[in-house]
Every structure is written in structure tokens, then in C-alpha cells.
């Protein structure tokens, strides 16, 4: 009896390891553990001292039916200040990474980042414009979001006017639109009031999570989460699409609609992420690479792994940003300063050869 069960178990295990992906799925699950630890650890960082016990008690009291009560100041620190910031860091990191991984598959190019179609520059200009018009925080976010969508729509419409719309024309139009909006951002800075608006624009463009509130999360969270879910649902098809348009079509993929789904989802995700915290470069390019080095190129596991790693990386960066020196270092600067050497190190270590 026991022997048959044992046999069955080895059988099942053998089956699972045969399945190739299974090995990678368990790696993905392993990746979650450091993320959870970092999540808990991040509550401890900051000017107001919070003990690990406080965090666990507070989380327990909040989310499980318990009779503990915690002090109001602790409640504010944990749930009004640190939690939204931690959630935002993880969400934005995950968002930019998953969008980057999807875009790299869509464009069959590992050098593509989610801002390739102009979404980041468009969102940046949207925010700069709102700041110029002295609109409030909420309006800056909405304006950034709309700016991102407008830029990608323009890219798409321009690429439509060329015969034989291929992904290459789309990228070329994206580059044009991107520099156009970059120029508009520069123009906004040039005309901005140098004492009030200019620093706001500059800091906003460098990216920060310092001012994130629960309300921001409620506004920009849903589009990010919906976009991520859609990308996760179609993730296996990105494999097929990355084999080439003609090949994918001959395998029965409706490429036009699949491309549209990916572009719309990534655009909404990225525009929302930029809306929450400004422009944070580098993550969307690098994290998919790191994920690919760990779990391989199969998008079925690559996308979940990118999400977890992206969340981990930006949360780590944000922790560093608020502890390293007494003033917060903008995230856009840190992601590059920490990310670039790390990436080069990984690249030199990896066996992967790009043809």
C-alpha cells in the first residue's frame, strides 16, 4: 500500500519534472519568500521606530478578526504612511517589469522597455502641464495618465498611415513621438516658474513614492491590477507571437488583436505607474532580463517571475531611497545607479548569448 503510494508520488514528481516548466514554477514560488520578508522588513524603516512585533500585531489586528487594539499613532504610521508606500513600490515595480517583459516578447527584442511607444514621455508631459497650470496632486496623476494614453494613441495613428504596418514602423513612430513629448517636457521646464513649478516638475520627473497616499492607490491601482491580470491570462500566447508575426499567424493566432491587447494593457499599466510616482526608468528593461536569467525565456513563467522580481527590486530601491541619507534620493536616480552595475554584473555572469 505504502509502496504504491510512494510509486505514485515518484510518478507524479517525475511527471512534474518532465514538464520542464514545473521546475521554473517552483523557482517562481521560491522568489516570493524574499519578497514577503522584505515587505515585512520595510515597515520597520523610517524615522518613527516600529518593532517587528508591532507590525505583526497591527497587520493581524487589521486583517484578521482579533481583539487587539494598537495605538492610534502606530496605526497611522503603519497604515496611512508606510503601507501605501510599500504597496505602491511593489505595484509600480511589478507593473513596469511585466510591461517590459511583454513588450520585449511583442517586439521580439530584448532591448525594448515599456516606454518605447512614448507612454512615459507623454505621461511626463501630462504631469508637467498639470504642474504648470498649478493643478492639484490628483489632477497631476490623471493628467499624466491621459498624457501617456494620448502619446501611444498618436504613435499608433502615425504608424497606421504607413503601408504594411509592422511592429518596426510602430517602434519608429514611437521614437518620434517620444522625442516630441520629451521636447514638450523641456519646453514646460523652460517656461515654468523657476522657484515654485520648476523644482516640482524636476522632482516629479525623477520619480518618488514619498507622497503616495491610500487614495492614490485606489485611483491608479485598479488599472494596474487589471492590466497585469490580462497580461497574465494571455502570457503563453506571447511565446507564440515572439516567434514572428507570420509564424504566429500560421499557428492560428489572431495577431492583430493579440498585439492590440498587449499594447493597450502595457500602456494603461505604465501610464498608471507613472501617474503614481513619476518616471522610473530602467526597471522595465532590466528586471525582465534578470527574470529570464533565472527562469528562462518561456513567458508562461517569465511574466509571474518578472512581477515578483520587479516588486522586490523597487521596494528595495525605495527602502534605500528613504534610509541612505537624511534627504530622500529620487527613485529614478537610484534605479539606474544600483541597477546598471548590477545588470552588467549579471550579464557578464550569464550564459545567455544574444544572436
Amino acid at each position, binding site marked *: 500500500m505504502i509502496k504504491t503510494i510512494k510509486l505514485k508520488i515518484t510518478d507524479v514528481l517525475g511527471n512534474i519534472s518532465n514538464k520542464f516548466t514545473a521546475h521554473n514554477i517552483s523557482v517562481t514560488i521560491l522568489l516570493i519568500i524574499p519578497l514577503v520578508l522584505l515587505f515585512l522588513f520595510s515597515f520597520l524603516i523610517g524615522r518613527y521606530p516600529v518593532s517587528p512585533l508591532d507590525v505583526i500585531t497591527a497587520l493581524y489586528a487589521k486583517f484578521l478578526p482579533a481583539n487587539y487594539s494598537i495605538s492610534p499613532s502606530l496605526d497611522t504610521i503603519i497604515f496611512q504612511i508606510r503601507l501605501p508606500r510599500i504597496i505602491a513600490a511593489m505595484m509600480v515595480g511589478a507593473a513596469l517589469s511585466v510591461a517590459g517583459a511583454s513588450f520585449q*516578447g511583442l517586439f521580439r527584442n530584448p532591448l525594448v522597455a515599456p516606454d518605447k511607444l512614448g507612454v512615459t514621455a507623454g505621461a511626463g508631459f501630462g504631469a508637467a502641464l498639470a504642474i504648470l497650470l498649478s493643478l492639484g496632486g490628483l489632477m497631476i496623476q490623471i493628467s499624466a495618465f491621459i498624457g501617456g494614453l494620448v502619446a501611444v494613441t498618436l504613435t499608433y495613428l502615425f504608424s497606421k498611415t504607413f503601408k504594411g504596418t509592422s511592429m518596426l514602423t510602430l517602434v519608429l513612430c514611437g521614437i518620434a513621438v517620444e522625442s516630441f513629448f520629451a521636447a514638450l517636457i523641456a519646453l514646460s521646464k523652460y517656461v515654468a516658474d523657476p522657484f515654485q513649478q520648476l523644482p516640482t516638475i524636476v522632482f516629479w520627473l525623477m520619480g518618488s513614492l514619498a507622497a503616495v497616499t491610500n487614495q492614490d492607490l485606489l485611483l491608479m491601482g485598479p488599472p494596474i491590477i487589471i492590466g497585469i491580470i490580462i497580461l497574465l491570462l494571455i502570457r503563453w500566447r506571447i511565446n*507564440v507571437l515572439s516567434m514572428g508575426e507570420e509564424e504566429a499567424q500560421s499557428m492560428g493566432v489572431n495577431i492583430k488583436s493579440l498585439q492590440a491587447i498587449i499594447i493597450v494593457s502595457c500602456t494603461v499599466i505604465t501610464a498608471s505607474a507613472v501617474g503614481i510616482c513619476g518616471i522610473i526608468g530602467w526597471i522595465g528593461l532590466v528586471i525582465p532580463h534578470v527574470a529570464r536569467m533565472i527562469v528562462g525565456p518561456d513567458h508562461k513563467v517569465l511574466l509571474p517571475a518578472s512581477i515578483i522580481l520587479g516588486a522586490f527590486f523597487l521596494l528595495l530601491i525605495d527602502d534605500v531611497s528613504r534610509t541612505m541619507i537624511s534627504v530622500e534620493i529620487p527613485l529614478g536616480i537610484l534605479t539606474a545607479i544600483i541597477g546598471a552595475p548590477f545588470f552588467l554584473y549579471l550579464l557578464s555572469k550569464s550564459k545567455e548569448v544574444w544572436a
Partner: protein
Amino acid sequence: MSSIIEIIDASFSYDGYNKIFEGINFSVEKGDIFCILGANGTGKTTLIKCLNRLMELDSGKVLLNNQDIYSLSHSEIAKNIGYIPQIHNSTFPFSVFDVVLMGRAPHLDLFESPGEEDFKIAEKSLESLNISYLKDKPYTEISGGERQLVFIALVLTQEPSVLLLDEPTSHLDFGNQIRTLNIIEKLSKKGLSVVMSSHFPDQAFISANKVAIMRDKNFIDMGTPEEVITEQNMAKTYGIHVKIVDIGDRVACVPLKIK
């Protein structure tokens, strides 16, 4: 016998007026190997791509099991027609098994990933071509000949009834050319219909049972290899002289030196 795939009065142009071909008719039956010959740039590849709607005809019809392919979705076409391109590269180093698994795409919904059944079908395709040993290798690091076989395995995973091959032997070494033809022949014996283009008239003798020669926007001849691959036709098509010789187990088409 009823035809699996039939093309009726087909014409195609890229720009709307310069026809690449017009008035083309042929039909392929179960187990047929139909080989299209022709000089470079005569539109063989374009014609093949029109058969599974990678390109759309200006006028004319393609019938798949008597159904107009323009009334079918891409996934319905892909369940019946597999297409193997001339040459293929992947950007990402997918494992061979992951690549072969992609052939299940037409059988899965948009939100679905392949499951146990699909793994089995993919394994079977690999086994049928004797390339199971490649399973875990990165697709980007195997040889051109192996990649060709892997792509054939991918297409077999689609479980089609028709195979379209665009110059399947043109990037292969001498031995792999003949091995590929042998595989094509075996597949046709299992009931698959094959439409392929080729630059080698001699290969039509080895594998095909129907041959057409494409030239000046149309077929100038169509029939069995013996009927079509003649010294006159080859001179007309390629502008060189050939000799058709009996070499024992088959006839061969041998090019002569240009004097």
C-alpha cells in the same frame, strides 16, 4: 477523390495592379505531394502564403475541404494547414520542447495554456521525427537542419491535414536535403497532403507526385514529374540545359555546363 485544398482562378498583387500571378488553378488530394518549381522571384512563396491566408488573394478562391478559407478564422485554418517557412530564427532561447508546444496554439483558447494532453502531443511529434533528444536544448543553439526538423515537429503538433513548405531544402546540407524529402514522403504516406516550393527539379523526381512550373504569372505546365520536368521545360524555366537520365531506381534531372 475529393480535394483537400483547391485554388480557383487566383490572382495576387502587392500594390493592386502589378499582378504577381493570375488565373492559377490547382487542387491537392489526400497524400499528394505537390511541388511548385520556378525561377527566383516568380511568386512561388507568395502563392504558398495565399493558401493559408498569410496573404490575401486579389481575386479567386481557396477552398479547404470545400470551404472558402476567407470564411474561416486563422485558428480554424491552422488546425488544418501547417506552414513551414524558408528559414526561421527565434529571438529568445526557448527550449525545443517549448517551441514544439506552440503548435497547440490553434487548439487552445486565448486565455489557455497548454496542459497534459498538449505535452503528450508535442512529445509524440518529437518522437515521430526521432528528435526527442533535442527536447531540452535551446532552439537558438541547434543547427539549421535540426531547427528545420523542430519546426516540422511544431507544425505536426498542430495536427494538420495539409503541410505547406516554402523551399524546405534550400538551407540544408546535401544529406539533410534528402532526409527532409524522405520525411515529407513519410508524412504524405500517413495521409498528409503536401504543397511545397523548390529550387531543385531533381528533388521533385525524388518526392513529388505532382509538379507545376511557375513562370510569367502562371503555371506553364502541370502534371506528373515525368510529364513536366522535361529538357524543354527546364530550358524555358531556368535558361539552362539539363539532361533527364534514368539512374536505375529513379529518373534524375542533371544540369549541364553552360557552353
